[in-house]
């Protein structure tokens, strides 16, 4: 079955791609570039870096810009998927959804309308186990956005390793109830390297945008 992966450049969509490639023919990546930095539906920090990631992986990337207005952004997602069907003959979509019924439902509805399969290989995974597995599989992932206290600018740009996972788990069990995988939008991540990347992404320059209740780590990258 030819599949397209909804690709944000973050750890979950990258890991879903990794799982999909084990058994299926992934023929393209699809990224939604949201102009609304508050989008409920789409990942926004460093979404532009998906161009580099696609080159590093060796798959074509189909991009669709959306203003990110609620529900209208879903029409833009539908247009992007329709374009992938026309251009790459995909028969199904893969997402990195783990717990979010909100996101999964909306992609399921579009796929159902278009007669496509919708697959969520990480669905309902234990979040701590999933995060450890991603690190064990040698994914190099950095924190590229923080959106919930007590995560602050000091976390930005840091590589997710075993020590960081323990800190995230401690926070998830403490009074802050942070999801260790950032499933509730507490943080966003960017993948710099993975077992299926032909080249690693190196950070040439970066800018930290530190706001009162959130922070973003904007990367200018290149291929090593």
């Amino acid at each position: 079955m030819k599949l397209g992966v909804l690709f944000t450049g973050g750890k979950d969509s990258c890991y879903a791609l990794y799982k999909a490639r084990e058994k299926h023919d992934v023929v393209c990546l699809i990224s939604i570039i949201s102009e609304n930095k508050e989008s409920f539906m789409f990942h926004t920090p460093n979404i532009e870096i998906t161009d580099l990631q696609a080159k590093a992986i060796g798959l074509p990337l189909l991009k669709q810009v959306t203003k990110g207005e609620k529900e209208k952004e879903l029409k833009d997602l539908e247009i992007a998927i329709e374009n992938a069907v026309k251009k790459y003959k995909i028969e199904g979509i893969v997402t990195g959804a783990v717990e979010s019924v909100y996101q999964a439902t909306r992609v399921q509805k579009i796929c159902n309308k278009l007669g496509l399969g919708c697959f969520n290989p990480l669905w309902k995974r234990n979040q701590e186990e999933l995060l450890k597995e991603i690190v064990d599989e040698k994914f190099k992932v950095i924190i590229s956005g923080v959106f919930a206290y007590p995560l602050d600018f000091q976390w930005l740009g840091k590589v997710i390793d075993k020590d960081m996972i323990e800190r995230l788990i401690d926070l998830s069990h403490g009074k802050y109830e942070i999801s260790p995988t950032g499933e509730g939008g507490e943080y966003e991540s960017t993948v710099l390297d993975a077992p299926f990347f032909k080249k690693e992404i190196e950070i040439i320059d970066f800018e930290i945008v530190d706001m009162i209740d959130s922070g973003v780590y904007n990367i200018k990258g290149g291929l090593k």
Partner: protein
Amino acid sequence: MILIVNLNDEEFAYDEFILPIKRIVGKCDVKHYKEVKNVKKYDKIILSGTSLIEKRYLDHDFSWIKEFEGKILGICAGMQVIAMIHDCKLKKCTEIGMYNIKVFTPNKLESEDFEAYCLHNYAVEPNDKFDELFGTKKCTQGIKLKGKEVYGVLFHPEVRNQSIINWFKES
């Protein structure tokens, strides 16, 4: 011992529709529906749900289910299978997402109205062999075969109502 019967033909659906149930149930066997032959060694069976593109299970002969003496829980496609082997018809009914479910008949699965995650294009029209346990405005969401511990739920309890699977496992 519990057997999970996988009703998906698409291999990739396993992670999404079988593993979440398996994680709740713990030690169990999983078999694809075309490979199920002898079920005597099991005391409970769960018939899985499927991705929306799956339809091939609808053409399969599941008559062995009628002979099974233990408890059965059919989830979504599994509920459709239970209903069809007892002569019920399917009707077109698409529900994708979270829905309010009303309790129609006192039962062991859920005692009060609740929310559940739905993912289906077809519902069942239960006949008088079944008690209708739950429903949304559009369709029946839960059935029990009269006189037997055979249940079907159209929603996916492995997503937001794991207590139902825990009850089934421990009861």
